[in-house]
């Protein structure tokens, strides 16, 4: 049986755009780990081409597709403009529909997707995590079917951030000073459950910059995790619900619908990237296609919007060295690199430092780190080393997944004496990070919030 059916197979014309130059290889996290062709974008495209040519969707082929983090660094690197993002998305939904996964694998995926796209379920997880009682955690994950997946469980435990008290944001926040824009705000799943402070900071910064902020309570998951995993019909359902949430009565203004929003602001890179593609995701749905495209056009990453609007709120000095980490779905997925750096540089006394190999993914990649704990650990530690090598006091990024992943890796490096993390002999430069590690972590929004409010550096990280 041929690998793909007629329902959106990877497109031959997009595959043929690849000239096999290999410029994508050094930016691919799995190639960086293993140095094997079939775990590189070029190799995966070749496998897709084989699939179109009649090769079956074998276990090994699926494995190589599954191993792709979907970081899209290759899309940035490609001089020929190959749309690997479209290719892998089309391939993944074929895999999900057509490839019978082993029971174990199916159970794990079902469990993950029964949990993560649901902020309320994630919030339930907060209790046990906050207390950090292993028994409690085990009880919970036992219910969700995770217990048999020890490496994934260990990864989840290691990822859990230190939690602060949940903050319940109002549905409408008035602008400070004259209103410059009406913006909807996505609170996200992981962001709202684990990083409520980031949402609070985002809302405050937007208000300080003259935005009226609308935060409908009915909003759920944007579907990013599902779409990246090839669960396209699930993703579509999430997308429709979110479009509804940002329309009409749900906005709290009976006379408003999403067309009256100037912008929909997102502070999580993965979510923003996925929202911007709603138009394509729902293109086949006559009831939603037009609304989806209209909403996508209004989506902005927080940093993008703030640069577009220009600052009105005065910044107070924040004397701190900052290493800025490009979240893949912000840098590669949305092409947003300059804006967050510009916003950070505009803060008096803040010194911005670049991280080596900035294009390389930290290994978080949605739920990839849960499905592939060991390589995710290696990638995380490699990134952590590069981050620590900057000597910065604070790591800033714009995605909750990256924050958790790098924080966990930094903790591991800190606790491990001696360097035996990857077994991979690395290029010089990797070796410079050593013990005695300590670095604060913050979202771009929190740094801006602290500067605008004149908080001390200690308030961060």
């Amino acid at each position, binding site marked *: 049986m041929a690998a793909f059916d007629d329902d959106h197979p990877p497109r031959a014309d997009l595959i*043929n*755009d690849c*000239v*096999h*130059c*290999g*410029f994508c*290889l*050094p930016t691919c996290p799995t190639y960086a780990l*293993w*140095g*094997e*062709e*079939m775990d590189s974008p*070029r*190799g995966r495209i*070749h*496998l897709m081409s*084989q699939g179109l040519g009649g*090769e079956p969707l*074998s276990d*090994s*082929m699926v494995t*190589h597709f599954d191993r792709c983090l979907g970081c899209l660094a290759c899309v940035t690197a*490609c*001089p*020929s*403009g190959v749309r690997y993002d479209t290719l892998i998305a089309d391939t993944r939904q074929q895999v999900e529909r057509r490839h019978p996964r082993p029971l174990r694998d199916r159970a794990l995926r079902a469990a993950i997707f029964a949990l993560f796209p649901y902020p309320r379920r994630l919030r339930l997880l907060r209790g046990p995590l906050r207390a950090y009682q292993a028994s409690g955690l085990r009880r919970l994950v036992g219910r969700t079917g995770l217990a048999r997946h020890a490496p994934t469980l260990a990864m989840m435990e290691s990822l859990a951030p230190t939690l602060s008290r949940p903050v319940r944001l109002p549905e409408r926040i008035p602008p400070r000073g004259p209103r410059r824009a009406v913006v909807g705000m996505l609170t996200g799943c992981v962001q709202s459950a684990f990083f409520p402070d980031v949402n609070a900071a985002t809302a405050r910064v937007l208000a300080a910059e003259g935005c009226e902020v609308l935060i409908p309570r009915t909003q759920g998951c944007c579907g990013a995790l599902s779409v990246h995993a090839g669960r396209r019909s699930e993703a579509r359902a999430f997308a429709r619900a979110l479009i509804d949430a940002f329309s009409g009565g749900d906005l709290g203004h009976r006379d408003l619908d999403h067309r009256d929003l100037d912008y929909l602001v997102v502070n999580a890179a993965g979510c923003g990237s996925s929202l911007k593609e709603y138009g394509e995701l729902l293109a086949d749905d006559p009831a939603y296609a037009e609304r989806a495209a209209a909403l996508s056009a209004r989506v902005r990453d927080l940093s993008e919007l703030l640069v577009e609007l220009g600052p009105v709120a005065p910044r107070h000095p924040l004397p701190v060295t900052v290493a800025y980490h490009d979240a893949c779905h912000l840098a590669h997925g949305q092409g947003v690199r300059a804006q967050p750096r510009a916003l950070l540089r505009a803060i008096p006394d803040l010194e911005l430092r670049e991280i*080596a190999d900035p294009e390389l993914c930290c290994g978080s990649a949605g739920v990839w780190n849960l499905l592939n704990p060991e390589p995710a650990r290696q990638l995380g530690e490699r990134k952590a080393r590069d981050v620590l090598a900057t000597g910065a006091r604070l790591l800033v990024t714009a995605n909750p997944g990256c924050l958790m992943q790098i924080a966990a890796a930094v903790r591991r490096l800190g606790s491990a004496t001696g360097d035996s993390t990857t077994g991979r*002999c*690395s*290029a*010089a*430069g990797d070796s410079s990070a050593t013990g005695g590690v300590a670095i604060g972590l913050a979202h771009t929004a929190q740094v801006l919030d602290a500067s605008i409010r004149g908080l001390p550096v200690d308030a961060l990280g």
Partner: protein
Amino acid sequence: MTATSMTATSTTAIGTLAARLRTVLGTDRVISDRQELRTYECDGLAQYRVVPALVVFPHTAAECAAVVKACAAAGVPFVARGSGTGLSGGALPHADGVLIVTAQMRRILELAPADERAVVEPGVINLQVTRAATPAGYYYAPDPSSQQICSIGGNVAENSGGAHCLKYGFTTNHVTGVEIVTPDGDLVRLGGRAPDAPGYDLLGAFVGSEGTLGIATEVTVRLVRLPETVRTLLAAFDTTDAAGAATSAIIGAGVVPAAIEMMDALAIEAAEAAVHCDYPAGAGAVLIVELDGPAADVEAQFVAVERLCRDNGAFEIRIAADDAERALFWKGRKSAFAAVGRISPDYIVQDGVIPRTALPDVLRRIGEIAAEHGVRIANVFHAGDGNLHPLVLFDDAADGQAARAEAASGAILDLCIEYGGSITGEHGVGVDKAKHMPRMFTADDLDTMQLVRCAFDPRGLSNPGKVFPTPRLCGEVPGRHKGAHPLQEAGVAEVF
């Protein structure tokens, strides 16, 4: 022997060899799955495809030697591959052979700035050497356009050049030692950290031998002090003739720039589409001229270069204000090959060399070739050393275009030979140009070159079918089986 029985025999031999290699490398590092093997069927030149019988990933020189020894014992050919970015099919696998991928041998073993040396494994990426050496104030000078991904082992095999080899020379001038696995499976050191090792310069013969003399397992390279100053300008001209005249004027003035690169209008269009490099609008050609070295020397010469560009008709000159702007100048140039994919469904990257002074004539003739064959040709080249990279654009889906593009591409090589140049300046001969070698060299020339092959690899197991159109039979080798050579038996080779 029928074709069928030969295949059956070789399948058995491969099966036995695979088992042997799995004991050497472990199961994970020997690939025999058909789909996985197929991802290795081509390198950066995708029009030649051969699926290897096995792919293996050694991690050490000893493992690499063990693999080669096993191949030699089984009489199975082997091909080395680094990052698979070569543009002449040099790493094209052998259908009944083993593809030895060095990509996982990627440790920088030592950085010794005080010795101006680095010792690296063959899979180390070119740019990684520079990145590693930069904090100490040094870099690795050869910079092929694929430097972000091409491996040092591949650079050694191909004697890779790059934009800056005008001033700094090629890989062969920057490699002072190698450890190689000979086609017999022995580890041998050639050269080292010091220059002028006694005896024949086998190192000089090995670099650029395209994997036909063995596999480099460790490479000692020169590190060059980072220049005090780098100044780069981008000059826009109406025509390639004017840009060519400026190039000649600069060289004629006794200036040796680090690089002089030229792109014509079509190449500029492609680069703009790909990387938005924002070159001056309406340019028929741009030159990128880079000077580096001591500040006072560079300043004095940069003024002269700028003047010579203006004197020869540059209508706009931009001077890179900082590293970011310099990177943008180069980005257009370095992405140009792959960028052509944005303006044409298919294309052939040609690589030929002419004497620099013939540039205007040859460009005119290339224009004529394009018109005659009904194809578009974009020109990107290292103008300083006359290394042309014409990109012949075509659409494989359109009837007959591919054949016309191939013919135009071949005609360009003839032109290079006619003007006393070479059929390859840096991409190598590989499988792609082996057939052109007799147009540049006589049978005696090729026979003499192959004496070296016979010394290293009398059985022709190391990357067979590359460089030379016809393998030379090396005569009887002491201690080896007697009788007709298998190539001779198969009617592939003749006895000289």
